[in-house]
């Protein structure tokens, strides 16, 4: 065993003999508080939590549907705009060719 090994061994042995001040019993009321927390904990969600969860899910669904509808609306109006601009281009070329004569 090297010198440094021996030093650390002796130090740890001495420290182990010093003991620790860990309480053998829980603090007053600890177990009662804990059992109460467990019984009312997230293992059994209450009515309010369920309601909030449902509202959140519903809101997410509504947002998604609205986003899809808005996207379709934008695409449709862009197509209409494009068809209008085509018509204008046809009319322009017809006018120019008429005046050209």
């Amino acid at each position: 065993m090297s010198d440094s090994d021996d030093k650390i061994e002796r130090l740890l042995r001495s420290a182990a003999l010093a003991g620790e001040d860990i309480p053998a019993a829980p603090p007053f009321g600890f177990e009662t508080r804990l059992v109460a927390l467990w019984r009312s904990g997230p293992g059994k969600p209450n009515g309010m939590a369920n309601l909030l969860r449902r509202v959140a899910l519903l809101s997410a669904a509504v947002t998604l549907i609205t986003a899809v509808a808005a996207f379709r609306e934008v695409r449709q109006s862009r197509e209409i705009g494009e068809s209008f601009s085509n018509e204008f281009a046809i009319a322009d070329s017809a006018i120019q060719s008429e005046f050209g004569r």
Partner: protein
Amino acid sequence: MDDPDASALVKAALQHDDEAARELVRQLYPLVAKLVRAYRFRRTSEEDLTQMIFIKVFQKLSQFSGKVPLEHWVSRIAVNTCLNQIESEKVRPELRQADLSEEEQAVVENLAVSSEELAPDKRFASRQLVEHLLAALKPAERLVIDLLYLQGRSVAEIKKMTGWSEPLVKIRAFRARHKMKQQLAKISSKEQL
């Protein structure tokens, strides 16, 4: 805690017997408190963490099959909870000479000049010195040194408590000891200057 006793308490607690649940807490408290202390949390309160561990134990109580001793099952929950919690406490200060009290410096000197066991009146200071050395280790290394040397548990026992393999326990202990030796050597050399 005897296993038939533990199983009976678990069964009763699951059947809404609050007194049985409280008795489980009372019996398991020293084990959980020792494990929490082994990590040397700096910022998280030990009582808060002990409570968090017990809540997890109770939430998972229906999953306890009784195939392993209850204490080992609870130990693993405690070890994992502590490791997750201590992630936020990653800063590991390096030990400096100035951090040591006069008594601790006397222990360092004593170790350097004598090869005999430290005197009983040096135990408290040596414990404090070990605490300082542990603070510079990784959480898992702190735990393994505490269990192996300060609590005097065997490698097989640590394996059951933590779920780590025996080679992993030995490697972690080896690395931790190596780091502690380096720190101690560094302090000793400064001490002798």
